[in-house]
């Protein structure tokens, strides 16, 4: 068996070059099956040589401290353990390229570490992008002009008086029977006082009253499967307090949300 010289056969350099071709930024080993096989061969020899040396001692072995361009001083016991040229090649590998205890020098270790890093970066990027998309949707989503909150149910005299007015108005609530005890005030918006109630079928109802005249503008009930919405338009001859500077054709929309009523202003373009 011929002994490879340090200059003619430098497994350390060859292994380093193959690792660079396999894991480096300009990886091109995929198209070279012979190089892949050679890299595997050198890695295996390296692994076996390390295993043959046993646990790492306090200092580097004589083989490990061989300088480049110089024949490595291989220990006879190591040569005996491996019994091949690969062992000599593996023994010549310096500590800089030696497989470390975390396995970062191994192909799978490197691949696994890179995979985890890419997965982490991908998830982080996905989360950031999702947050940005949510933020854009949130920023662009329309918002009500006001949110009216429910007051006490029929606790004051105003509600009692209002009920009397409602009861006297024929055809209110789309001919439904409304429970007086559920009458709830929500305050006013643009001159429109807002009340809610519940009918005998448990449908919520919305009642809109013109504050200036105490005239009922709308009284609608809708099954809970549909959104309960009542509109008040700004028309010629209407209450100027309701118009409040809005163009003719604009609409005040009130949407019942249970404990709150959202008030929306849908503005019409200025009439020509």
């Amino acid at each position, binding site marked *: 068996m011929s002994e490879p010289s340090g200059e003619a056969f430098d497994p350390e350099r060859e292994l380093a070059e193959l690792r660079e071709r396999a894991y480096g930024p300009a990886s091109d080993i995929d198209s070279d099956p012979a190089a892949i096989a050679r890299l595997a061969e050198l890695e295996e020899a390296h692994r076996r040589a390390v295993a043959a040396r046993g646990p790492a001692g306090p200092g580097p072995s004589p083989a490990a401290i061989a300088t480049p361009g110089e024949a490595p001083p291989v220990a006879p016991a190591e040569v005996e353990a491996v019994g091949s040229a690969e062992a000599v090649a593996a023994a010549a590998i310096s500590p800089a390229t030696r497989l470390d205890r975390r396995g970062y020098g191994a192909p799978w270790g490197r691949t696994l570490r890179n995979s985890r890093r890419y997965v982490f970066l991908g998830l982080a990027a996905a989360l950031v992008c999702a947050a940005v998309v949510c933020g854009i949707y949130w920023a662009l989503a329309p918002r009500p002009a006001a949110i009216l909150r429910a007051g006490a149910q029929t606790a004051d005299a105003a509600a009692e008086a209002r009920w009397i007015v409602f009861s006297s108005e024929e055809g209110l609530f789309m001919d439904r029977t409304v429970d007086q005890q559920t009458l709830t005030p929500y305050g006013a918006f643009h001159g429109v006082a807002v009340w809610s109630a519940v009918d005998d079928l448990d449908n919520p109802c919305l009642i809109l009253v013109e504050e200036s005249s105490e005239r009922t503008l709308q009284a609608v009930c809708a099954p809970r499967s549909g959104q309960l919405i009542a509109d008040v338009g700004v*028309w010629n001859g209407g209450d100027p307090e309701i118009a409040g500077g809005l*163009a003719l*054709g604009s609409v005040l929309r009130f949407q019942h949300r249970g404990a709150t009523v959202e008030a929306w202003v849908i503005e019409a373009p200025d009439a020509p």
Partner: protein
Amino acid sequence: MGSSTPSGAEHGSDLRSGIPRSRSVRLAVLALTVGVIIGGSVAVAAVTRGSDARPDATLQATGTPPDELVLRVLEPPEAEHLEIDLDTLRSFGTHEGIELWSASNAFGSSCVIAIHRRTQDVLGTSCVPVGATTFVDTIAHGLPIGAAYRFTLRSDAVDVSLLLPDAGG
């Protein structure tokens, strides 16, 4: 010596699958990122579009011009304040005896009109500036007590939703 070659070859086959694996992981992560972004966008869009339930029916424009009855029931003083332009009436056909029409008004708003031809009643009218949902609710005419039809005007159709009370009416 002979034993190292099979071992090395075996390790090499791992390598062959391992090196592309690194790239396939990158592609998988990229696909995951794109998938999360698209999925998240769709989810957010679905949520922000609100609880638009699927309509029970959709009525398409028929091209039928308004006849004398329709023009008569919409003449002032009916819905006079809405200032509906009768020249812009478009028919969307009939649903359960209720005729649906759309129109524009003097303020450029979109209007939806529900007419019960048999009783010659205007069951509901609504005009809302373009861009907001325009709908009209109707009751009676064969519906269970407490139930209502909601007719929602879309760009070129009218969606019909039957709203039933929880109590079953």
